[in-house]
């Protein structure tokens, strides 16, 4: 009895009667070249894109600038280019995932009928959780992480050189040009989860090709309160290069402990290890001496790359309060990639689910104006991610605290790394 009352309450709140669309989610295919027919997320005038990102909780520090980047780019497209194809404005539907898989799945199901595709899904566990549904619903999404597993997925639109490639290029650079050699001891310090495993996979591949062996592997849980054990382990093995796969908070903890214990190898970190706040940290002197950051593209603010010039201008115009931030840049590039897919789809006159997939497969390459490497595109089996990475070192006087050392280093065996779907 009481349950009825409760359900009645829910009834009024859940709202939304059932449309016939729910049961059969097919949109009509538009004719080729004609105006795209309306369908989920597209009403003939506006294209809606989904964003599921943590805007609360501990990962919001990444989710917020990412989404800011997404939004700034579309503001630019809507205002200056008058929309996709010069006609269709883009609107973002943003939902908070709180970095919690069930919440993300729920939000996904809530908005999937309202969007053409997803501009951003943040979090490897969340992308993993949604992958089945994306395939079943045939919706395309942009994962905001650089895992190699995304490369061969039909329904994912990844960008950037994956973590494994970063490790490969980083290790190769150090051994050949960066002050290392094949006799030195190389170790890893990584998170104990799939992200950490991705970095490890890259290091293993590189060492194998160079004919070297790993001297030590230390793992830690996210949010590790004290790194003494890991640092003493690495120190005891006499590591000379340590490849770091972590997130900023743990980077700070680990390297602080290393500084305190007098352990000063060459540290090399993947792209998510850094954050601009390190500039003011007491750790900065140590970082300047011992840390190298691996990512892609030119130095922030280097306008010789056409894409960078555009990025800076758009940031100044549409997101003036945003401080230089690597995640903002990533979000901006995500939208740039999505834009290219949408343009192709509009040209084909088909913004339905199948139309987006077809448009995606028909593109030869996705271009980022050299801010990130050009991504060879096509059908999933033909996709070829960028194979080069840039090397940076900390410099408190530069924006985001990073200064370019070498642009676009590519290890000779980087192209040999094969991507398979998991």
């Amino acid at each position: 009895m009481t349950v009825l009352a409760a359900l009645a309450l829910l009834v009024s709140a859940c709202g939304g009667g059932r449309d016939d669309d729910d049961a059969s989610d097919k949109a009509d295919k538009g004719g080729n070249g004609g105006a795209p027919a309306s369908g989920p997320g597209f009403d003939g005038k506006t294209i809606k894109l989904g964003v599921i990102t943590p805007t609360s909780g501990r990962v919001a520090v990444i989710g917020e600038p990412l989404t800011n980047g997404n939004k700034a780019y579309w503001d630019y497209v809507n205002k200056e280019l008058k929309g996709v194809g010069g006609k269709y404005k883009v609107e973002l539907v943003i939902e908070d995932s709180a970095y919690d898989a069930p919440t993300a799945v729920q939000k996904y199901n809530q908005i999937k009928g309202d969007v053409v595709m997803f501009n951003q899904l943040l979090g490897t566990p969340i992308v993993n959780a949604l992958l089945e549904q994306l395939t079943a619903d045939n919706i395309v999404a942009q994962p905001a992480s650089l895992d190699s597993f995304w490369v061969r997925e039909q329904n994912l639109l990844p960008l950037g050189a994956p973590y494994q490639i970063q490790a490969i290029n980083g290790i190769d650079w150090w051994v050949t040009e960066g002050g290392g050699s094949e006799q030195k001891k190389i170790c890893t310090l990584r998170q104990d989860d799939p992200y950490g495993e991705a970095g490890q996979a890259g290091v293993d591949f590189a060492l194998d090709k160079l004919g070297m062996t790993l001297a030590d592997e230390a793992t830690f849980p996210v949010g590790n309160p004290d790194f003494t054990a890991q640092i003493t382990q690495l120190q005891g093995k006499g590591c000379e290069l340590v490849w770091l796969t972590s997130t900023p908070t743990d980077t700070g903890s680990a390297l602080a402990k290393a500084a305190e214990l007098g352990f000063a190898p060459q540290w090399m970190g993947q792209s998510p290890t850094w954050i601009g706040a390190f500039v003011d940290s007491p750790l900065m002197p140590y970082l300047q001496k011992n840390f190298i950051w691996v990512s892609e593209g030119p130095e922030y603010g280097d306008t010789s790359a056409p894409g960078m010039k555009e990025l800076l201008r758009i940031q100044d115009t549409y997101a003036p309060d945003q401080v230089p931030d690597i995640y903002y840049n990533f979000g901006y590039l995500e939208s740039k990639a999505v834009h290219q897919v949408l343009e192709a789809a509009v040209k084909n006159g088909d913004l339905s689910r199948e139309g987006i997939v077809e448009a995606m497969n028909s593109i030869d390459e996705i271009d980022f104006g050299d801010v990130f490497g050009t991504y060879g595109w096509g059908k999933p089996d033909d996709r070829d991610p960028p194979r080069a990475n840039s090397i940076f070192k900390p410099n408190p006087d530069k924006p985001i605290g990073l200064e370019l050392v070498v642009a676009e280093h590519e290890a000779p065996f980087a192209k040999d790394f094969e991507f398979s779907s998991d």
Partner: protein
Amino acid sequence: MSFVAAITGDDLWQTGFSGVAVGCKYALIALGFSIIFKATGVINFAQASLVLLGSYLTFNFAHTWELNFYLALLMAMAAGALIGVVIEALVLRHMVGEQPATVIMATIGILFVLDNLTTAVWGPDNHNLGDPWGIRTRDVFGVTVADRDLWTIAFTAAVLAGFFAFFRFSTLGLAMRAAALDPEAAMAQGIPARRVYRAAWAIAGLVAALAGATLAAGATQLSPATGSLALIAFPAIILGGLDSPLGAAIGGVIIGLVQQFTALLAPEYFDWVGESFERVSPYLVMIVILLIRPYGLFGTKEVRRA
């Protein structure tokens, strides 16, 4: 993959010290839990959010307002105490006498509110606390000791001493012990229960701010995740005995030592147990101790009458 390595005696001492240092951080958090439990019989889940708020307040006073760090710390402690009192007056006072599960739930509700208020006000970004200890270290008998850790240990000792003096020598402390033992009898003796509870929450807020500052000090950055460490305090207070502050502190140190030694030794000798076993080992140790002494090391045995 296990790598044969020499774990030197130095390593063991170093790990031991780090265990004590980490343990003192837990101890400070646990002391906050302990005082509220001792006075009111409630496990306060909101303590974690008080710790988080305390660290952000310290950051605000030290960094944004640019005051002397120690002054900022004192101010944060005072603010923490105030917030504790406010929570007690607004919510907990009305829940006296309710079932413990209900009160625990209310503190969980407060946890959600405070945590998110904190990130709403200060934003989700990482910050540097601005403490003067940085990453400076000194050498003590062959063990490298960070200034920050020394201060943490000193704070813990000071708080413990303060508690001891408070409970032994001050009237309010005596009143608190009486009220914890038997609220009705205490009230019959004229002890104002309200004042006792309020004092307990004030002290808890104060200690939480101190704990928060030590957590975020050094090169560890302040972030919304800072409060999640407070969970580890639970095995600490249970280990030590719920109603014993000394137990809470010792429990914290034990947990810290267990964690650090597990992290050092497990990958070498027990790597079949999986990665990051140090997250689980404190609980296992706690369970073992509880099997031998079900009320914790220093807890008072509950007298049960039919």
